[in-house]
């Protein structure tokens, strides 16, 4: 179903967990951009509880999600935008608020003029690793391609993309349970992609791809960060350090608080 943007409604945004933990700057910039587009705008930062559910604690999950729903209701959100694919699925399943992926919304509201075609002179050729949780969401995947086209970057489609995508290795809370298997899955995923420069739209996927041995950028790195050139290194694996991740999460919270008033 196509989304229709209705600016008389109050839109809300939540980046998720991994994105703010990875990079508070791009989280804040995205929040600020959405805030500039929507006349009525709210933002929340909390976990949707997917990890709780994934380990099998369904009752606790329900309780936890309710806390988030209460927050959203409290700040008057009528339509929700999320930047995490797991959030999208969780919200679709249990939230009373209609929820859209940021990657579907951006093509509708457009990118800021200043970022358009920024990559047109770069010789780097990316490929896309699609998130496996939303493998059947073609609109969402189209949004990522649209953003790359708008930015002017070149990319090739890998054979195992979109609905045929493979797991990055992070799914199902396997990393803390069976790290050997997770590592093998990460390596195999990298081997089955058709470029070593990999664009993702999930920060956890980005961490997995890096551990699998390739370079990887979050799509928002490309939107808000510097122009990426052929031999550039991708940002470090921040999520590998819990301490840095929580500091970033705190910074993101501060950034959101400063942006949305």
């Amino acid at each position: 179903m196509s989304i229709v943007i209705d600016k008389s409604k109050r839109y809300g945004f939540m980046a998720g967990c991994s994105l703010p933990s990875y990079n508070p700057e791009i989280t804040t910039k995205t929040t600020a951009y959405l805030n500039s587009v929507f006349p009525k705008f709210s933002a929340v930062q909390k976990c949707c509880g997917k990890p709780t559910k994934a380990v099998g604690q369904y009752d606790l999950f329900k309780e936890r999600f309710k806390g988030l729903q209460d927050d959203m209701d409290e700040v008057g959100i009528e339509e929700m935008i999320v930047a995490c694919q797991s959030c999208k699925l969780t919200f679709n399943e249990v939230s009373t608020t209609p929820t859209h992926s940021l990657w579907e919304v951006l093509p509708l509201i457009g990118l800021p003029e200043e970022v358009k075609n920024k990559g047109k002179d770069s010789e780097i050729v990316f490929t896309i690793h699609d998130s496996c949780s939303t493998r059947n969401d073609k609109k969402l995947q189209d949004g990522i391609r649209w953003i790359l086209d708008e930015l002017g970057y070149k990319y090739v489609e890998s054979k195992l993309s979109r609905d045929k995508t493979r797991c990055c290795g992070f799914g199902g809370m396997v990393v803390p349970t069976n790290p050997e298997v997770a590592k093998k899955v990460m390596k195999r995923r990298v081997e089955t992609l058709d470029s070593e420069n990999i664009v993702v739209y999930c920060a956890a996927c980005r961490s997995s791809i890096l551990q699998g041995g390739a370079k990887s950028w979050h799509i928002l790195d490309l939107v808000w960060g510097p122009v990426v050139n052929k031999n550039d290194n991708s940002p470090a694996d921040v999520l590998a350090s819990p301490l840095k991740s929580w500091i970033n999460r705190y910074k993101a919270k501060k950034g959101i608080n400063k942006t949305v008033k």
Partner: protein
Amino acid sequence: MEKVKFSDQIIKDAQKIVEECMGKEDAFCQSACPMSTDAKGYVNLIAEKKYDEAIKLIREKLFLPNTLGRVCAHPCEKDCRREVDFNEPIAIAALKRFAAEKADDESIWDLTTGNDTGKKVAVVGAGPAGAQAAIDLRRNGHAVTIYDKLDVLGGMMRVGIPAYRLPRDIIDYEYSYLTKLGVEFKLGVEIGKDIKFSELRDQYDVVLLAHGAHKGNIIPIPGHKAEGVFPATEYLKEISLTGNFEKAGKKIMVIGGGDVAMDCARSSFRIGAEEVYQCSLEDNDNLPASHEEIHESLEEGVIFNAGWGPIEIIEQDGKVTGIKIQKVKSIFDDEGRFNPAYEAEEKIIDIDTVVMATGQVVEDITDGVLKQIRGGRYEVDKDTLETEIEDVFAAGDAAGSVIVIEAMALGRKAAISIDRYLKGINLRENRCFKEEWSYETKLDVPLPEDIEDEPRLHTNMRPADERKRDFNQADLGFSEEDAVKEASRCLECECKMCMKECIMMNDFCQCPKEIMEKLINGEDIEPLLAYSCNSCDNCTIVCPHELPMKKIFIGSRKDFVKANKGESPMKGHKAIKLHQLFGFSRLFTTKRKGGDK
């Protein structure tokens, strides 16, 4: 952790996987073989040049690999995926012969027999059915004596299949296995003549009738009594035993379209015929004979009249001088009955000999004690091969088989029944009849990507002009290089699509069915398995039946948590617990409502 109680939905999904998962299904070649020979297995061992292992695998089921490698009608090749999709089946039979020639050795023959049971079995007939039954019965500790009216071993393989296809020393060598096992032979003894059937029953605990269908069939068309008309059985038998057929002329018509007809036609050249013809109701596209036999017959110069039926044998002074044949319009009528109809077109061919390869019947040796049905076959219970008399069983062509490998399967089936009978075990209880014959595998998988139509490699045939003059083997077999190349074409048919996709399942099972069988039998699945699933769904996506593996792995976590006081049973998940506490804590969360702009 307490005993996990899996929810009804999990058990229901597991049940579905047990029923539909094709991970344990046999390959098409194996299920097509009445003896369930693991053709895929040995073909791939040949591809890996592991000939010793290949012959061992073949010998688990077949005691005459070299013989079958030459004469088996190979139903496996008809069901081979490369036949079904490309009309270029793997040369499974010829590869079996290659493995036998390369690596068969008496030192690997399994000569173990069970403890002596004191029971005695008489087997009538030294063909493949009788021999197979004798082997299985000896292995179970029974004393076995094989009777045959011929002085030689092999039954129809010896006197039906010509020597240029099956050299006789190979039969003798492979049959030496029976002697080594302790099977006793009484050759040149005809039951019903030299020893009465009733006497045989008196002397043994059980009698197995496996004496084949050696009586030829003559179709009663006008002229069929003329001098120069012979049944294929008589023709091939004399040629087999003497290398000649005294009464044959120089211009021979063979009536029939099956492998026996091809054997008669090709043998005719070898005993000095100048012209050899064939005619059959079936046209070229529907001949029952194998492609190889038709091809080799054509190469040797047999003139085919497939789709032309014999109408009249023309005689002069009581001797055959020709045959009138007529073009066939249809073989069966609207109701599906055998009722040939003809076009107006007819022709007369000058010949002096007619050989009818139009079926064979079983001759009764029981003095009418047992009822015979169509083709003279004894009336038997299809599942157990028991007859109306409790200590008499039948197998092979005498019980309805048509080809060697089927005869062997019936021999094996009869041996299972006889062993049970002798031990006082019910013939039917706890017995899987499906495994005693060919069956339809449930395997249904898409052709693997990037598979191309690679042509079948052929064995080295002696030039037609040379080979048609003698009874030495016509086919010299595969070179090692060709055998390996041919074996490498095997598509290794199996499902296991999810196992190729999922890394972690390989640490726990051969296929999901294995795990789910445990689950529905009340056993737990390992928590580590359920918690190693990435939840990516690729297993289900590649599964031809879209079976719900992820749904079970992820769904069962709820049940594990329930059995573990509300916590994940995985130690590593303590970190998640902490992360979740932080993720919901006020320190890291926020909610902001922007003002209306």
